[in-house]
């Protein structure tokens, strides 16, 4: 933690960056923090409660950081995939950000909880996560725990669902999607959802029925899943912020596994690796096409 604070202080006092985006101690657990003065660097923390994907603040849809000019960001390995995604899609100029990588051995599910990091409290996406540090980082600080073994509970649930007959899967998703109140928190928090004007907000034509019934919800979640295909970085934020507890990670993970199997692509923290949707190979498998 001292290492992180010292580095942040140096970057701010030397004028390399105008702000450092990290975490601080909030009234309830850890919360994102914008530090703009060298003295403020002492507020910064990093531990297993620093769950949030701060890359969401880099998204051009949010003017917070853009206004500040060059900024530094504290970066978990999973967040590095999101930042790489934003750079890959030319949403963030690489030279405008300084990335302070923190070594990470997993975070908890709920940033507000006081629970220690354990097999019971660890976020599902951290199970089996191989990354202890983000390769994209300019500086890397801290030490990491050993991490947690996979497979994740979600992977098991996806297999379970896939093994069921289609009508039972349909019933499962009907129940889950009926809960959606279309607050669009999943969209707002997603670092990869950065369109100026979202498909869901368009009225002519209205592709996604706006009232929160299961049919419109289905259209919304299909659209979201398709737009994130091959782009989702598995930060788990959509599922965490969903007020209705819809297991959105099942959908995004399912698609990620399809993309991994068919196109041998996994979300990468290398911006030079092209995303699978938007590119193609002449010999892509097409066994489903007559």
């Amino acid at each position: 933690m001292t290492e992180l604070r010292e580095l942040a202080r140096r970057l701010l006092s030397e004028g390399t960056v105008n702000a450092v985006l990290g975490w601080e101690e909030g009234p309830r657990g850890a919360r994102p923090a914008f530090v703009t003065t060298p003295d403020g660097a002492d507020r910064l923390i990093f531990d297993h409660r620093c769950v949030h994907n701060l890359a969401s603040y880099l998204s051009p849809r949010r003017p917070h950081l853009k206004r500040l000019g060059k900024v530094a960001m504290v970066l978990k390995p999973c967040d590095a995939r999101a930042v790489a995604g934003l750079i890959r899609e030319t949403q963030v100029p690489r030279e405008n950000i300084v990335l302070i990588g923190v070594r990470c051995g997993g975070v908890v599910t709920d940033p507000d909880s006081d629970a220690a990091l354990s097999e019971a409290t660890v976020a599902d996406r951290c199970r089996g996560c191989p990354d202890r540090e983000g390769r994209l980082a300019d500086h890397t600080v801290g030490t990491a725990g050993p991490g947690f073994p996979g497979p994740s509970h979600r992977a098991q649930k996806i297999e379970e669902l896939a093994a069921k007959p289609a009508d039972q899967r349909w019933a499962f998703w009907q129940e889950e999607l009926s809960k959606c109140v279309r607050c669009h928190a999943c969209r707002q928090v997603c670092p990869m959802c950065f369109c100026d004007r979202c498909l869901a907000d368009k009225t002519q034509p209205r592709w996604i029925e706006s009232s929160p019934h299961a049919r419109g919800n289905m259209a919304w979640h299909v659209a979201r899943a398709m737009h994130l295909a091959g782009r989702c970085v598995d930060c788990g934020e959509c599922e965490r912020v969903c007020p209705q507890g819809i297991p959105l990670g099942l959908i995004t993970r399912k698609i990620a596994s399809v993309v991994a199997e068919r196109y041998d692509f996994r979300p990468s923290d290398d911006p030079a690796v092209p995303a699978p949707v938007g590119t193609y190979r002449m010999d892509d498998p097409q066994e489903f096409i007559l």
Partner: protein
Amino acid sequence: MDSTTPAAAGGFEPRITAFVCNWCTYTGADLAGTSRLQMASNVRIIRLPCTGRIDPMFITKAFERGADGIIVSGCHPADCHYNAGNYHARRRFAIFRELMDFLGVAPGRITFSWVSASEGAKWRDVVNDAVTRVRALGPFTAYRNMVVVQATAPLSTAAADHSPPEHGGGGEGLRMQSLAAAGVDSGATKEVQA
């Protein structure tokens, strides 16, 4: 049952929406017509510039508006008028198909094919296969009635039109008859308003 013979009165005739590219499949379908090939008449074709133009949202919207099945068809690989549109579509729909399957939509409801401008006979086969398959799966009321599932009471005065949501559920004969009486188009509009 041969897919080209009209079903017995009251039987289920699927409504199938085909999204096809202008350059290959639409021309191929046109060839099927000018060649007087006999095929099922359940398909409504929507012509688009390219399969790359076909957004997955088109398909969810078609299901919402009463389609029981979908056909997506375009140029064979290496034949795209725009060079690469079908390659992009191929990746997109490979993923989309798996997504819909995961959400519980029977994969047989969505048919993908490459039909070139000279393949009128292939288009006939694609259409007949799709119609046979979707007919066996039954009407997709489960999708379009998702709105009704949630409402406490039927929102439409035509309550009889909405059979209980189930996969391939019954009661569809009544609905189809009433749609036929009202004209399919106005029937579809009524559903959307509901």
